[in-house]
């Protein structure tokens, strides 16, 4: 798209959006946010980038095909549930660690992994659809 303002602002804006999306994802357990909304922000970042810089540049920026990201996310979410089985709980029961050696980290959990999976699915699927729609024959 030939808009000077958009083209100038986009690299900065989409980078910030991507960063913000990860922030939203990670804080989601205690504050407003989470994998779904974070994923939407991330997908918007790529969508805007594609509109401003062209599809080829956007595809280079996302590195792997978007639908692969979605598939990976789905796999990750499912595996986080399988991990619970290995610990002797029912599928998808949350597992938590509060490591004492790294108090700043606060916690690690299969639930967070699951949320990351949701995030990747949303980013991959929405960005994939947006890219495909922008493609011209």
């Amino acid at each position, binding site marked *: 798209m030939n808009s000077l303002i958009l083209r100038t602002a986009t690299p900065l804006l989409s980078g910030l959006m991507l960063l913000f999306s990860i922030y939203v994802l990670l804080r989601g357990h205690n504050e407003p946010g989470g994998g779904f909304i974070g994923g939407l922000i991330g*997908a*918007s970042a790529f969508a805007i980038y594609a509109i401003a810089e062209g599809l080829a540049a956007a595809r280079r920026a996302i590195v792997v095909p978007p639908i692969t990201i979605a598939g990976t996310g789905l796999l990750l979410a499912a595996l986080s*549930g399988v991990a619970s089985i290995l610990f002797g709980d029912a599928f998808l029961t949350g597992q938590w660690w509060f490591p004492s050696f790294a108090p700043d980290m606060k916690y690690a959990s299969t639930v967070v992994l699951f949320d990351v999976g*949701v995030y990747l699915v949303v980013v991959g699927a929405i960005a994939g659809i947006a890219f495909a729609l922008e493609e011209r024959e």
Partner: protein
Amino acid sequence: MLAATLAPFVLGVCAPLVRRLLGDSVGWALAVLPAGLTIYFAQFLGPIAAGETLTFSTEWVPAAGIALAFYVDGLSLMFALLISFIGTFIVLYAGAYLKGHADLGRFLMFLLMFMGSMLGLVLSDNVVTLFVFWELTSITSFLLIGFNHDKARSRRAALQALVVTGGGGLALLAGLLLMAQAGGSMNLSTLLADGDVLREHPWYLAMLLLVLAGAFTKSAQVPFHFWLPNAMEAPTPVSAYLHSATMVKAGVYLLARMNPGLGGTEIWQVLLMVFGGATLIAGAILALRNTDLKLMLAQTTVASLGLLVFLIGIGTPLALQAAMAYLFAHSMFKGALFMVAGSVDHGTGTRELHRLSGLGRAMPFTAAAGALAALSMSGLPPFFGFIAKEWVYKGTLGGELPMILTAVAILGNALMFAVAFLVGFKPFFGKPGDTPHTPHEGTLGLWAGALTLAVLGLFFGLFSGFAESLFVGPAAIAVAGTPMLVDLYLWGGFKAPVVASIITVALGALFFWQGRRISDWLARVVDALWGPDKGYDQFMDGVVALARGVTGLLQTGLLRRYMLITFLVLAAAVVLPQLFDSIGVTLQAPPVDLLVWSVALLTLGGGLAVMIIRSRLIAIMSMGVMGLGVAFVFLIFGAPDLAFTQLMVETLSVVILALVIARLPVLGRDQRGPARVLRDGIVAVSIGAAMAALLLTITAAPLDIGLSAYFGERSYTEAFGRNIVNVILVDFRALDTLGEIAVVTIAGVAVLGLLAFRRSDPDASGQELIGQDISGRDPAALDPAVRDEAIRDRETTS
């Protein structure tokens, strides 16, 4: 016990690999498992004969009361032993019969899986587990019948068997669940221990009819008998195993199992006797009408199943003993005769009765097996078949039962007598016939099973004490549900049953002597009649025609039409229930608050703009404004999460919609005529009004905060999160979310696929995107209104 049931499945999966490693001797290797299972089950013979019953249980879905529960009593043990013992020889036989066949490994895989399913079925003590194994036998049977999948006849037969038995299976599921509800337990042994609860329950008739539908379809009772002869398209090992010795007896097993719970009532007796008796006569007549060895045997199997159902229907202790004795005898002689028929086919290249004779010299072992099995089937002493037949007559003659029962039994048995001699004797004696191949004896695997089963028929006849104390006695007691004296013997003096036997033999000899003439005559009569097999085709054609009609009506290919229907149905579905609802809705003026009012105005303004503006791109953006207004509403009323999400969803919707519109040739102005604007307006107003009414009703009702309180309380203490919405999504209800993200992924893949499909199609230009599905079809075949609309569309867009 669980391991014994699952072992065939595990080995089955490995069968193709074993085939590749061992080549054609795979049958000998795989037969070790059923042989081992036979020994395993045989160790229960002692305790069961002493009157014990054994239960084994493993949790499966404890929340739903579903357990992998197994129950061993006389009935299930007899079945389990027949399945594993005959299965041993069938695996051997299959290895020899399909020697060199490219798909032998796959065949053995299906066969072993069937064995596991059948074992699970007869041992199950839980109604759901029983149903699961029941359906597994239908599915494996489908795969085995359709083994020669390049033949259209095989495919049809496989599908037919699946439709008939699978449909019956669904009825059975409903019946079993009704029983579980009525009796208050998922455990069969618990339910059946107190049968009066079931028999006196108001749902009794429904349960009975549903269970009978399952049993009658599976055991090929009239009018569902047609699938069984068609199933003879399967390779002969399948016919011998599934369609005579085991699977088709599942229905009989079910009736026998249910007898203590559902049996004994007048309607049970009448239904079983009428359908069983009709099946006996129909099967026996159809057997004489055919001249293909396998088809003749298949029809006599139908007849025998009818006889078994008939006997269970009579339900007296002697009749139940007769049913179990006949079932035991039948599994041996019919399994053997099927294998003999297969060997004859293998050795000569034909199964046509009139071309086969004088094979005895070339195929001595097969001939011996055929003759011995035929003697047992015809019910001549000293074979076990004789004892079984004597008990059948004791069953029908005892008490004050009408004479017609005995007459039906005599007629059926006499017809089967004739068939037994035609199949088991005629091919092997007399002058050598004219066969495609020079007759030759098969390998050991091809005749060992048949000969063993046939000799056992003689053994149990001579030493009937074994059969009585180990098999028939405990099984009959299990079926009756009460202890009884069982005393099988070969010769009980010159009494009424012996007279009936003599009449049977005389009549049977007459049928045998006139076999060919009767067969030709029957062929002319039967083929002219309408039969359920034709009815099945008509039914299936009807189903397809109905589906085509409904699809043509609903799937017009016009997105607009889909949305119209969806919205109207949704509006009706929301409004109609409210008409019957008594919750009063009172409207109250919103608070005077500048923020609320401005947000409302913004939202309404967006909506108004969508209606007025004719440029589609701007209309889409106006919709975005409405969404933004909704996000504000969420924010004002304290749901930042929702507001946040709404904002992002709205932004992306606008972006994606704009991208879609840009691809479509409809960019530009709204050019609908006044009539269509009016129609769309009515639809829009009705869905909007319906949703508004729904929301008002919901908010008018007192809010149940039980769930919110529950999650609020536990969110931090159990899931370590303060954002309740997110905790619900990723922890409490993570399984739902997993399903949802799977849908998102699939939708993404589908969109990519559709777009790529459009791109790869060089003929399709953007101009015809709207009417895509219609362009390929004959316009005259479409609904006229749709056709006009499609043509208008194309005119307006070009």
